[in-house]
């Protein structure tokens, strides 16, 4: 079913007008506007009948441009490779919208964020607690509204966010915010009876740094990729690539072939080093420090190589709107290929030794079970989903950069436990090695950056999904006129995966809780979005 048929279907069923037909719409992308009272049945049709997967919803304050708040719900259809945006306009006097969480459970967090950020209240939301803002943030201050100035520090108010009490007979064991097995601050309240976890409650966003506010108030188009790259400590390049592709699609900029291949190579390099890092951390959490040391030893050549290519071990800084900044000259190819061969031999040796290790199997097999239905219902993405038999991979479903020119297949295991998630990541590393080899061969010569002559036109929508090591990263951009986007909505994969952790932890052993959480490879900084305090206002930062 192509985007056009979908558009006509939505037209007759829910009289949804299509977004302004501009030449810039990229192939698998459709944007429709639905009025708020028809929204629920539209979403129900999309979710139940048409088999759409919920991505994220973004609230934007367009009172200056259109005099209304805009709530965008983003969906993805993986078989046909379609991304769909359903816009709903909310008038500022009566800022409320019917909540879609009862239909789509995965939308729980995003709708709570709507209420926090721009003050649009989702009616009928099962758990209307505050999600993103700190406990002591004043009640009526909505940061993402355009009149709220960037970088303000309101006096702390004393409103308390209610915490879920532990069920009868069990006690609370706090896992976080500062805990040895979590690399970043996240707060899991485990309700424990003896050694068995009978419930869990997650309170995150300790690392929220308000990057979206920066994106639409102080940063320009070309400054955002470098800040986007620092959203996550491990998978930076995916965010900058996704942002650049979104803006390029919005502005209709065509990037040169060579830039596409370089972006693909950078993404796969990053995927390899992220999976190696994760396997080390998982080994350490299970108490197997040898795995930590050895995997991080294998990872070191990748870091040296990326340092040689991009000038920095991890934050490549390669992407910019219109192409890439760093080139991969032919003489470097041989170093890359040698590194890949060496890594492949060691990785295959490790791969063969893991299934035979019974004590490691005892900790991984059968623990942290995420059933297939729960994975689909909560729209889980990445290796977490592929570990439970959900065959979604953005590189094949919604091809971008140079992925449509390379042949590779999805690595899917249906064990639904920690082991199958580990095996998915192990397979993916081998696939990445193959991809880089293909990309290096097929890479044409030519420019790596198209010169952009005129300003990026305001009011256009750009959308792009990139397969990060942890899952599908989605960036939605609404271009603005003062050389910066009016609304920029990044969504990291952990944002979707974390919502399924509390139900998954229920029933597991306390000793397994850290490894179950780590098997999702959570990146809490991604979920919270990074911010840098503005130098000019000389705000004190500590």
């Amino acid at each position, binding site marked *: 079913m192509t985007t056009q048929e979908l558009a006509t279907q939505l037209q007759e069923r829910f009289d949804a007008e299509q977004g302004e037909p501009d030449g810039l719409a990229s192939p698998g992308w459709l944007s429709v506007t639905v009025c708020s009272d028809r929204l629920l049945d539209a979403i129900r049709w999309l979710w139940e009948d048409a088999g759409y997967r919920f991505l994220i919803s973004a609230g934007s304050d367009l009172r200056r441009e259109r005099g209304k708040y805009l709530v965008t719900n983003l969906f993805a259809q993986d078989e046909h490779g379609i991304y769909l945006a359903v816009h709903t306009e909310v008038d500022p006097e009566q800022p409320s919208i019917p909540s879609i969480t009862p239909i789509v459970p995965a939308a729980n967090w995003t709708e709570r964020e709507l209420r926090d950020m721009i003050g649009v209240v989702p009616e009928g939301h099962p758990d209307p607690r505050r999600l993103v803002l700190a406990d002591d943030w004043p009640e009526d201050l909505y940061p993402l509204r355009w009149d709220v100035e960037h970088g303000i520090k309101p006096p702390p108010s004393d409103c308390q966010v209610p915490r879920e*009490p*532990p069920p009868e*007979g*069990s*006690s*609370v*064991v*706090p*896992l*976080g*915010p*500062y*805990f040895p097995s979590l690399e970043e*601050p996240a*707060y899991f309240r485990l309700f*424990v*009876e*003896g*050694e*068995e976890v009978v419930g869990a409650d997650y309170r995150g966003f300790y690392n929220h740094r308000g990057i979206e506010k920066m994106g639409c108030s102080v940063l320009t188009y070309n400054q955002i990729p470098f800040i986007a790259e620092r959203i996550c400590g491990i998978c930076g390049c995916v965010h900058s690539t996704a942002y650049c592709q979104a803006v390029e699609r919005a502005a209709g900029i065509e990037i040169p072939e060579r830039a596409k291949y370089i972006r693909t190579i950078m993404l796969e390099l990053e995927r390899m080093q992220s999976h190696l890092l994760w396997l080390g951390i998982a080994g350490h959490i299970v108490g197997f420090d040898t795995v930590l040391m050895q995997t991080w030893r294998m990872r070191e050549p990748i870091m040296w190589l990326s340092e040689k290519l991009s000038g920095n071990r991890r934050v490549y800084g390669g992407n910019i709107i219109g192409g890439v900044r760093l080139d991969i000259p032919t003489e470097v190819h041989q170093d890359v290929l040698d590194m890949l061969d060496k890594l492949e031999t060691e990785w295959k040796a490790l791969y063969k030794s893991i299934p035979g290790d019974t004590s490691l199997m005892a900790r991984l097999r059968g623990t942290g079970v995420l059933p297939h239905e729960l994975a689909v219902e909560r729209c889980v993405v990445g290796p977490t989903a592929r570990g439970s038999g959900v065959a979604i991979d953005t590189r094949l479903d919604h091809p971008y950069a140079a992925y449509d020119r390379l042949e590779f297949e999805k690595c899917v295991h249906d064990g639904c436990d920690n082991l199958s998630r580990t095996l998915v990541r192990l397979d993916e590393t081998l696939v990445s090695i193959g991809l880089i080899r293909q990309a290096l061969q097929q890479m044409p010569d030519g420019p790596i950056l198209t010169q952009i002559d005129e300003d990026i036109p305001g009011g256009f929508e750009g959308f792009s999904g990139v397969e990060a090591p942890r899952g599908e990263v989605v960036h939605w951009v609404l271009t603005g006129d003062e050389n910066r986007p009016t609304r920029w909505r990044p969504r990291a994969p952990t944002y979707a995966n974390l919502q399924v952790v509390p139900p998954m932890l229920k029933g597991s052993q306390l000793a397994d809780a850290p490894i179950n959480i780590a098997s999702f490879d959570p990146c809490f900084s991604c979920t919270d979005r990074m911010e840098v305090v503005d130098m000019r206002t000389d705000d004190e930062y500590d």
Partner: protein
Amino acid sequence: MDPLTTAVVVLLTGALLTAFLSRHRLMAGYVALASVILASISLLRLSLWIFSHGPFETVVPLLRLPVSGLRVHLIVDQLSAVFLFIIVLVAVSTTWFSLRAMELCKARSLIRFYPALLLFFATTLGVVAFQNMLVFLLFWELMTLTSYLLIAFETEKPQAARAGLLYFVAATVATSLMVIATTILYAHNPSHTFEFSQLRDTLGTLTTTKPVLANIVLALFLVGFGTKAGILPFGFWIPVAYPAAPTVTSAAMAGIVTKLGVYGTVRVFLDLLPPSELSLVWGSIIALLGTASIVVGTLTALQQTEAKRLLSFHVIGQIGYMWLGVGIGVAMYHLHPAIAVLGLMGGLFHVVNNASYKSLLFLNAGAVEYRTGTTELDRVGGLMHIMPVTTVSAIIASLSIAGVPPLSGFTSKWLIFERSIMAGLYVPVFIFLGLVAVFISAVTLASFMKFLATLFLGDLHVGEQVAHREVPVSMTIPQTLLAIVCVVFGVAPVPVLWYLYRGAAEILPGMVPSFNSLVGTSPFRVNLTLLGSNSAIGATGAWDPLLVTAVFVGAMLFAYGISRLGGARTRKVPIWLCGEEHSYQEIMYSSHSFLQPFNRYFCRLYPELPVPKMRMPGLLLKLLNPDTWITYPAERLAERLARAQTQAGGRALVVYLLWAVALVVIVGLVLLFAHT
């Protein structure tokens, strides 16, 4: 008059006096304490005399029954002297404790408590003193009756009444079995008397002529004593009776009744039964039953969440150790006397230790109940901050029941394990019994860690109206007394072992190896080097309490020196909970989830005790309920007497005392006259 009868008489008068003084609770308590102390002084004098002059024999005129010229010999030999010492120890401490502890059952008047308690002590003396089976059974039954009165003291509480009935039925059934066995023996006794000496010969002949009948008799005796001692299949009444009874009763009974069960077993299986192949079989059975009750009693105790119920399951567990020791003694005597005597001494020493720390633990539970009103492990915690003396005595008792070296529990367990391993060289089954005992001593340690952790350690959280003060002095003194006994017997066990050796040698026929040959001749008899079977190797086991404790204390000073080396400052900080604040209730780790993985894996072994529901017809219930036909009439009589006195112008108290003195004089005259 001989010291034993004086003790019994003093206790009887005490009982009568307290009956009259039941209105003034404290006065009744002091009178009871005074009579117990008087009786104990005479008993101690008696036992010391026995240990110097050998068994004390007199003919008790009191019971000159006209039937067949039956003359009853009162013979107190050294084994009974040891048990006399136990009874004295437990009686003094529990009565002293009960002065203030009985305030808990304010509703009930004490008319039924103190008389019953003193009668109970008197009957236990009787059980220990007589070498005549009939009289022994008579006092045994009297003990059951008085202890029933003590258990069913708070009859208005349904579970107390049910516990009393259960105990009464179980004990009576056991005694009837023993009566049957005695009649069989009596029938085969050519000289038709119940004296132990004659019964010993009849049993000897019986084992050779009619072995089946002999086995039946022994089985009946085993079941009889097993029920009162609380061995596994028969001891089902203990976890029901002790928690329901007032804590003082359970402390007294835990200290005495179960020990008399062991006394009976030793009497029958070592005194009466001549050592032979049969005694090997019966010794192994006793040891097996003991080990079974160790395992099941302690594993079930691990799951309990109520203090008194946990302690009562441990009563079953600890009895197992005593029977294991006695079992080795019975089984191995004809094969290898050195191992057997030491095994028996280990069992008896465990009886003495258990009497001290088991009643101490019950007193601790009583103190906790007195101060906080509950013994639920979850509802109360951190009492260490308000009840230091009780906490220290509880820690000493818990560590010694768990067998931690310098304390008394360790020495007896050491003897039992060591001898069971050495016995295992001849009869392999004993080695496995010893190992199971080791495994379960670790479980005992675990369950008492839980007991201490939930009640005493951690942060203080008790009910609002609970006064933050230690329990009154009259309750802390007996606790410290028993704690001191635990420590002293742990550090200097040899004198106690000497008396135990004399007691054991008394009843064991034939040439008994000398004390030195058994325990080594180190200076001041401090180092217990146990000689093994083949003298080629010499000593097989060694335990030198004084030296090891000295080294331990020296090492502690050394460690303290190291810790002060760096001169580090101390600072108070809240608990680190990873950065977020939590209320205490939220993070309190409840006791039932304490060892949950272990419990779930192991303790399905022994489901909750199947306690039979007793529905008795109205009449029998009324008959068995002492209140209706003894207590209330007596109370009304006493009241009428008192009222008559008060009309005579308020000198009631003085008149009471006159009455008391008159009564004593009359009883004294009767005894004196009868004696000549």
